[in-house]
């Protein structure tokens, strides 16, 4: 039987039988989000315009995200225990909890999932944002839009009240404080993983071993509390299982990020961003659907690279963009339309290897050490140094430092990163104030002038350098 969302789900990689199978779930979730027949023409048009749906890998990624949305929204109705974690967070603990808890447990980052689905696909985040703003996270105060989305989605009943939340108290004050706010409203327990970003400027990747010990101890505390609150025991073997499960996905993602470096850039950053963020936001569909989707995409991208096909001109300036937009693909397209190969993101170049002389006492300390070595959670210097390393390794022509204005650990580098990267590498940096999670205030048109001017500067610089050679 034909339903009004057949075309959309077809575009998003679903087979007819699967749409039929998921019908009840889809309609329940659509009702919660207030998506109906009137939204379909607009949404189908958006998907056709904003996503490279000729690529099966892209369709599979859209499918994985949509299934994750259904799983998230219906988790409680489907009798699952629900654990939310904050974004960003050290990779590992969420996956380990999921690996230990199995099918009866939903573990994910709801706000990032809502951005990539309700925002990216349906462009319907505004009611959630407004509900979040009315629920204690008002506009105009630089409060995190991810937290507004989570808060609003809870208030509107789009996502279930969790059994447990955990957040990165080591990195972000806002996430933990918003967890506290939601605890006041809904009463669910919050487990804060504490830490301190107290390394001095210039110290990276090393750090005081006490930092690793402390963060490792806090990760252990999380696992103890998970057992206490939801009866799921996370131990060394579930952590190892999580690493094994995620290895395939991360291996494919590694290939994809390097394929993006081809000249001309083979696909839009929108697709690669969707792939990378699936691994960060989901512990369910990222593991069941993710590896195949990314593998398929890699195959298609490789084919394009071999044929010399791309979505920007060959020789276009190669740009490192801090992160692709979570909910508005138009912003990444605008950068690409300006003639920039927005090929690399912050995570394209993996962090360096662990110092072999370090003694780590348990797997939590290993997670802590790996997290700190990634730079973002280490220090502002560590974060900036990762950019410098990436610029050098990938032969980047320019950096789009799109700093999340309402995320303090990022915003505090608004000017510093530009100064530091330019001084260290000589590569031009555009410090661009942005909201990566929603685009009401920082939309395509407000950013266009700056990005287009920057693109012209990079093109002129590249042309001069080419002539000089």
């Amino acid at each position, binding site marked *: 039987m034909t339903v009004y969302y057949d075309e959309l789900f077809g575009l998003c990689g679903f087979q007819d039988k699967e749409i039929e199978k998921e019908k009840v779930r889809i309609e329940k979730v659509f009702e919660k989000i207030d998506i109906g027949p009137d939204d379909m023409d607009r949404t189908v048009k958006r998907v056709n315009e904003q996503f490279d749906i000729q690529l099966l890998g892209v369709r599979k990624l859209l499918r994985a995200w949509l299934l994750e949305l259904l799983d998230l929204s219906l988790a409680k109705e489907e009798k699952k225990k629900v654990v939310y974690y904050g974004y960003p967070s050290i990779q590992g603990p969420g996956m380990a909890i999921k690996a230990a808890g199995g099918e009866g447990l939903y573990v994910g980052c709801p706000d990032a999932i809502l951005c990539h689905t309700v925002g990216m696909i349906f462009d319907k985040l505004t009611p959630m944002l407004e509900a979040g703003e009315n629920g204690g996270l008002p506009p105009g105060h630089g409060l995190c839009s991810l937290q507004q989305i989570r808060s609003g989605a809870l208030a509107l009943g789009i996502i279930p009240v969790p059994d447990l939340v955990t957040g990165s108290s080591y990195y972000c004050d806002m996430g933990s404080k918003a967890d506290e706010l939601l605890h006041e409203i809904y009463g669910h327990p919050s487990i804060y993983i504490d830490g301190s970003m107290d390394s001095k400027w210039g110290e990276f990747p090393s750090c005081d071993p006490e930092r690793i010990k*402390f963060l490792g101890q806090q990760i252990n505390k999380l696992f103890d509390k998970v057992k206490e609150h939801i009866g799921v025991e996370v131990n060394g073997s579930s952590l190892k299982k999580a690493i094994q499960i995620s290895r395939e996905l991360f291996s494919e993602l590694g290939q994809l990020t390097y394929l993006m470096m081809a000249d001309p850039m083979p696909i839009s950053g929108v697709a690669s961003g969707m792939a990378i963020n699936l691994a960060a936001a989901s512990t369910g569909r990222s593991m069941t659907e993710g590896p195949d989707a990314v593998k398929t995409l890699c195959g298609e991208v490789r084919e394009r690279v071999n044929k010399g096909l791309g979505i920007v001109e060959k020789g276009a300036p190669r740009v490192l963009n801090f992160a692709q937009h979570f909910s508005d693909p138009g912003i990444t397209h605008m950068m690409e339309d300006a003639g920039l190969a927005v090929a690399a993101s912050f995570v394209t170049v993996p962090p360096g290897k662990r110092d072999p002389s370090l003694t780590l006492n348990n797997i939590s300390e290993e997670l802590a050490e790996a997290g700190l070595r990634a730079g973002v959670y280490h220090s502002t210097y560590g974060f900036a140094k990762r950019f410098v390393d990436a610029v050098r390794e990938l032969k980047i022509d320019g950096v789009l430092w799109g700093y999340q204005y309402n995320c303090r650990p990022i915003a505090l580098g608004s000017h510093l990163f530009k100064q530091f990267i330019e001084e260290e590498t000589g590569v031009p940096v555009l410090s661009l104030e942005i909201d990566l999670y929603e685009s009401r205030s920082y939309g395509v048109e407000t950013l266009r002038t700056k990005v287009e001017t920057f693109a012209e500067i990079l093109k002129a610089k590249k042309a001069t350098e080419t002539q000089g050679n």
Partner: protein
Amino acid sequence: MEAIDQLSVHLEKRPDNLIKAKKEGQKIVGYLPGGFLPEELVLAAGAVPVCLLRGGDSSMVQLSSQYICRWIDTFYRCQIGLGMSGKDPYYNILDLMVSPITDNHARALSDVLSYNTDLDIFSFGVPHMKEPATRDYYLHGITGLKNKLEALTDNRITDDKLREAIRLCNRERELLRKISLLRKSEQVPISCADFVALNHGSYLADKTFMVNLLESVYDDLQAPTVETLKGPRILLTGSTLAIGDSLVLDIIEETGGMIVIEEFAEGIRPYWEDVKSEGDPMEALADCYFMDRICPAWFRPGTERLDFLIKLVNDFNVDGVIWYQLMFRESYKTESYYFPDRLKRETGLRMLLLESDYNPSEAGPMSTCAETFIQTIGER
């Protein structure tokens, strides 16, 4: 008050006196407010602690925009402006700046100054929860600071020297506490402006001078002839009350309110607890400065502070609460949403939220809000 005049004169001469002390070989150690730096360590090392607590200056906030975006807490942007201006008498004479990393706003200042100046900055972490492991981490941080101070001054911080400094600082805390508690009475003998001036002064003045001054103030305030104040009794709370950020105090006073107690994470020296004199002094410092003190809103959860506010409301027989919020300090902003309900439920009182970005144009609207609030609670 005569003591306030004496303090003003002392503070006016303080930068010159510090320059003189520096020439004579003493080290000047600046630190960020928040109450997480044990001044005892600096004193025991023979150095001079100086709190970097100037605020309320919109020109410095404006200057900071050359170094950081506006989404950082107003006070810390002001500090960035002061640190970068080359005009601040204290930043200019520092041998060391100590930056207890409490939240990302403090980290922003530390990072910007580290990158853009030659200041020697020592950071140590202040965790956000009170647990044995977090206390150990804090203790590890102040132990690192102790080593740094010993290297800077070439003086060993012995237990005896540390205990002596603890005694002096405990006396200062005790006196501030006693003076503050006088305001529990119906007959309030000291204005908030004067109490804040004393508290602020304690962050900059010579420690012995300050203790002697507080002794005389306490004695004077107990005299039966002292003039007492009137007006609806206000609890003023918030993240930061800096030296020079007097607009909110002036407005509340001018509109007829009487602040009888203040609770701030930064800018009001914590005086409710003393450092224990027995046992290992470093452990005692960690207990007092980290575990025992009332936590700021950037602790998780912030319940302890909100419980304490309710206690203060009851103990000081408060008529209304004014929450003074600096822009973009997200921990405080978030709590300001749900605390009024709790306040109303548990005490029947109302709360007024005033926000500032150190912009002089705020005076008009702030005054109107305060006047209306004070009039309303005055009719209670």
